[in-house]
């Protein structure tokens, strides 16, 4: 595997079409990034969890778009199918199942104060990470034209180099399945 330092792509002597493509990709990135941040802010600010879940779905879908821009085709599909499809529909199903009325929700009068305080706590960590990111070498992102990130390549990698973690993940899923059955199947007599 190739490792540090990564190969640096020199930007192509721009034909007009290539420059246009890069501009288009930048526009798409900006759109998706703004949508993702708006969805995340909505998740943090909305009072009812249903509204929060809906704005979180926006974040997930725009993250899928970003994966497509990074030419991760399999992860793009999995993000849409597994995250925005399966996990979020599970969460929304449970929120609807519990039939939450507005006065069941916790009263958060000091929410804005808490948000302000947590921003003050988190800000130094964020700035530290930004400083780390700024120190990385600059590469340009072009679309990879080969089969980077396709199903076949990632699958081969998964079943060759990552076989043991894959099996461990399967055990994890089995454990969570058994745990969910035990938790949900508890009847009144067993208490």
């Amino acid at each position: 595997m190739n490792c540090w330092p990564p190969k640096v792509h020199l930007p192509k002597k721009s034909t007009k079409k290539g420059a246009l493509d890069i501009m288009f990709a930048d526009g798409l990135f900006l759109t998706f990034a703004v949508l993702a941040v708006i969805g995340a802010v909505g998740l943090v600010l909305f009072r009812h969890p249903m509204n929060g879940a809906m704005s979180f779905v926006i974040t997930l879908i725009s993250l899928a778009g970003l994966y497509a821009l990074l030419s991760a085709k399999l992860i793009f599909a999995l993000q849409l199918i597994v995250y925005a499809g399966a996990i979020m529909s599970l969460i929304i199903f449970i929120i609807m199942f519990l039939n939450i009325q507005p006065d069941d929700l916790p009263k958060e009068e000091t929410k804005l104060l808490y948000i302000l305080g947590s921003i003050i706590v988190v800000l130094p960590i964020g700035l530290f990470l930004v400083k780390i990111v700024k120190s990385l070498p600059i590469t340009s992102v072009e679309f990879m034209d080969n089969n980077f990130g396709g199903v076949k390549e990632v699958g081969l990698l998964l079943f060759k180099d990552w076989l043991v973690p894959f099996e461990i993940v399967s055990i994890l899923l089995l454990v969570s399945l058994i745990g969910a059955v035990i938790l949900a199947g508890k009847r009144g007599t067993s208490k």
Partner: protein
Amino acid sequence: MIHNYLLLSIILFCLGIVGVISRRNVFTVFMSIELMLNAANLAFVAFSRFHENMDGHVLAMMVMAVAAAEAALALAVVILLHKHKSKLDTNVFSLLKG
């Protein structure tokens, strides 16, 4: 440029931390944790594109599997807690306080 993706990932992760710290609704806290997992996924895929090998994609798939397992278990626990206390406030769930 790859820096933008990493900066976006940092922003999303910090928003997730803010949600976990400042909110008291169980579902919002849970979805903020999912948001942090997604931010980590974005960083994995961006670095994978940066280094041009696909290990990050495999790791992102594993994070998704962990998130699915977590969602199943956490929602079962939330349903049980709601049955016991009929509240969704994390301050009410202090059974282990001793």
